[in-house]
């Protein structure tokens, strides 16, 4: 019996295709009686029909459970609380954010408090030495940022490299060379690694914050014109590879270079946008009859695609050449290789569609499991310009059919951009079924973590909700409204306007005072377009005097309160 139950568990977790009726029920499919996943009211019947048939029940000899299996089973019975704020906030009405700006500022304030505490801890480490945790918790001990070894030696150089002090390590390296001592190959390679990673500049203290903002702005720029985005990217990323900088100088000074040195230099050059130099370094590597590793090849593919003044076919042929060389050097491609190819093909517009499909088939043929980033690149390639009149392709349906019910693990930094692009396509195609499929994929297993940071999550949910307002019956829309807002995202004024128009179409204008009360909470009272919409709808609504007068007067007084 236990094995049948466990088999049933496994079947459900593989993700059966959720039936239509259950899915339409949306959030209210989560009744207390449905145990595992939402909308699975029809599932037990299917199960019974199947296992009563000719299926063999294999009883395993011994079943090992994870240490937290009981906790996971208990956790699966509890669903998301739709009335609670996200757990990162304090549970108090004064301290719960009411708009996305506030939530962003609260989280930033908390993080800056943590940074202030870390600054104090690392400035006075002698007061924080008490170590009573058993086992030892390394992240609760102070960190040491100052190098301890003072004399000029290779150990001092290694220490400064570990502490990521670019300028200090270059100084010590020069002093070592002047003193005549030879520095070992590994140490020089690690110094080159440090220099190439940071682009010969000191890593700034808010390096992480800067990177994040820059990648976000790059994303928005990519949605627009390609040329504009290139200029913007060049302006904002800032760190370019200058000629005759430390890395090149040290590289030239090295008596012996192995493959690692060349590879590091190539990857550093590509990261800091010195593409032609990277390609020439690669020819040098080949001349020395050395082999590059798979990461270097990935960078080279990127470099080939980003070289200016070359036609698409030429670039594609160069990439194919690189792949052939990779095969010749016996280097196995990995997931990043294919993702990089697909990302570069995005720049080729219409030309890149056929090669993209070929790449995808090749990836499946080799046996590499595609990640969400792969599908994201394919979607971006095929649905680049939002013009459905041009006869958009149906590839999104194939993609969704393939990945429905699968759980993914993070393998690529671009994995969290899939849901945003998928929902954008659903919204432009005006397809509600597809949107439900995408949302179902988000809710399977652990895929929630791929929704991405706040702006992306807000984009996803506002597009989803706008589609619901447009295409779904009003009762279901209102249930989704209660479910999603405000616990998952804060609505824009445009979202509320869409909801009001949906109410208008469905002739449910008595909900307007409620919507107005909610929009006051989210701080939209100062949006003139929202106010105009509400007033216009209220003026249009003809209430019968005895029932509607109270609602009407309440609504008008509420609206009058803002004028």
């Amino acid at each position, binding site marked *: 019996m236990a094995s049948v139950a466990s088999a049933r568990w496994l079947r459900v977790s593989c993700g059966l295709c959720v039936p239509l009726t259950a899915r339409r029920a949306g959030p209210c499919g989560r009744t207390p009686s449905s145990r595992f996943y939402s909308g699975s009211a029809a599932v037990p019947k299917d199960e019974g029909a199947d296992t009563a048939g000719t299926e063999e029940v294999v009883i395993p000899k011994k079943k090992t459970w994870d240490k937290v299996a009981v906790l996971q089973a208990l956790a699966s019975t509890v669903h998301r609380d739709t009335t609670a704020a996200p757990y990162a906030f304090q549970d108090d009405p004064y*301290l719960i954010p009411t708009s996305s700006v506030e939530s962003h500022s609260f989280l930033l304030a908390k993080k800056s408090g943590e940074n202030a505490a870390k600054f104090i801890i690392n400035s006075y480490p002698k007061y924080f030495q008490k170590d009573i945790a058993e086992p030892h918790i390394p992240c609760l001990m102070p960190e040491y940022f100052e190098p301890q070894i003072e004399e000029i030696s290779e150990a001092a150089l290694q220490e400064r490299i570990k502490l990521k002090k670019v300028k200090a390590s270059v100084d010590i390296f020069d002093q070592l060379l002047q003193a005549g001592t030879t520095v070992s190959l590994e140490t020089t390679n690690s110094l080159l690694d440090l220099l190439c990673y940071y682009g010969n500049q000191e890593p700034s203290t808010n390096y992480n914050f800067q990177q994040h903002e820059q990648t976000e702005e790059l994303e928005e720029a990519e949605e627009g014109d390609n040329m504009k985005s290139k200029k913007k990217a060049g302006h904002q990323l800032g760190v370019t590879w200058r000629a005759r900088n430390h890395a090149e100088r040290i590289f030239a000074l090295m008596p012996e270079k192995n493959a690692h040195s060349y590879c590091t230099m190539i990857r550093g050059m590509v990261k800091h946008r010195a593409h032609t130099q990277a390609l020439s370094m690669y020819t040098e590597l080949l001349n020395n009859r050395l082999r590059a590793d798979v990461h270097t090849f990935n960078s080279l593919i990127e470099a080939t695609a980003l070289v200016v003044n070359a036609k698409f076919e030429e670039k594609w042929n160069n990439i194919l050449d690189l792949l052939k060389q990779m095969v010749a050097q016996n280097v196995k491609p990995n997931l990043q290789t294919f993702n990089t190819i697909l990302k570069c093909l995005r720049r080729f517009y219409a030309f890149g569609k056929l090669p993209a499909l070929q790449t995808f088939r090749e990836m499946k043929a080799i046996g590499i499991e595609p990640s969400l980033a792969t599908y994201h690149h394919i979607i971006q390639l095929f649905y680049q310009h939002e013009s459905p009149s041009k006869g958009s392709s149906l590839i999104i349906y194939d993609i969704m059919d393939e990945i429905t019910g699968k759980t993914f693990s993070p393998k690529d930094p671009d994995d969290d951009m899939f849901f945003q692009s998928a929902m954008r396509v659903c919204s432009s195609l005006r397809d509600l079924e597809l949107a439900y499929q995408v949302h179902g994929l988000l809710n399977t297993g652990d895929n929630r973590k791929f929704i991405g940071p706040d702006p992306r999550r807000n984009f996803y949910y506002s597009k989803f909700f706008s589609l619901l307002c447009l295409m779904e019956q009003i009762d279901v829309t209102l249930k989704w409204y209660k479910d999603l807002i405000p616990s998952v995202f804060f609505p824009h004024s445009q979202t509320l306007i869409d909801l009001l128009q949906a109410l208008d179409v469905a002739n449910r204008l008595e909900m307007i005072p409620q919507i107005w009360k909610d929009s006051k909470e989210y701080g939209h009272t100062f949006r003139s377009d929202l106010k105009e919409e509400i007033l216009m709808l209220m003026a249009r609504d003809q209430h019968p005097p005895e029932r509607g007068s109270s609602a009407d007067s309440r609504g008008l007084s509420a609206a009058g309160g803002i004028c």
Partner: protein
Amino acid sequence: MVALYCGGGLRPLMLSWSRDLPCIWHALHTSVVCFKNRVARVRVDKGNKPVTYEEAHAPHYIAHRKGWLSLHTGNLDGEDHAAELTVEDVFLRKFMLGTFPGCLADQLILKRWANQVEICALVLRQLPAHKFYFLVGYSETLLSHFYNCPVRLHLQTVPSKVVYKYM
């Protein structure tokens, strides 16, 4: 000598020669010295002093009308480190008093659970919300590093001190 007669049920008598002579009355107290108990209670005054529920109840009401301010298992039979936990409590209360200046509405409640410490504080709405979050992030991180265990802060805001009665 005056005859010794005890008062019986009456009040204790004083021994002297005579009641009329102006002599020193050697007042003999026949009971043990017993001072009035002044610990952790607010003396009833004219009725103009606002007190919270916590302050209004004397310590003999703990476990009857009051709960504990600091919850840990150090005082149970067979458990140790009660003294270290008490010293930690004192430090935490002083730390929070200083970090949230003028914001604490009542005494802190400290709960210890496995190796975690949860500080539950009732705060007044003196600061804007993002400043509260800054202080929360700061104190959680600093205390976690100081005590080498996860320290969590739960705040509840009130508009003003919650008055139970006026004593």
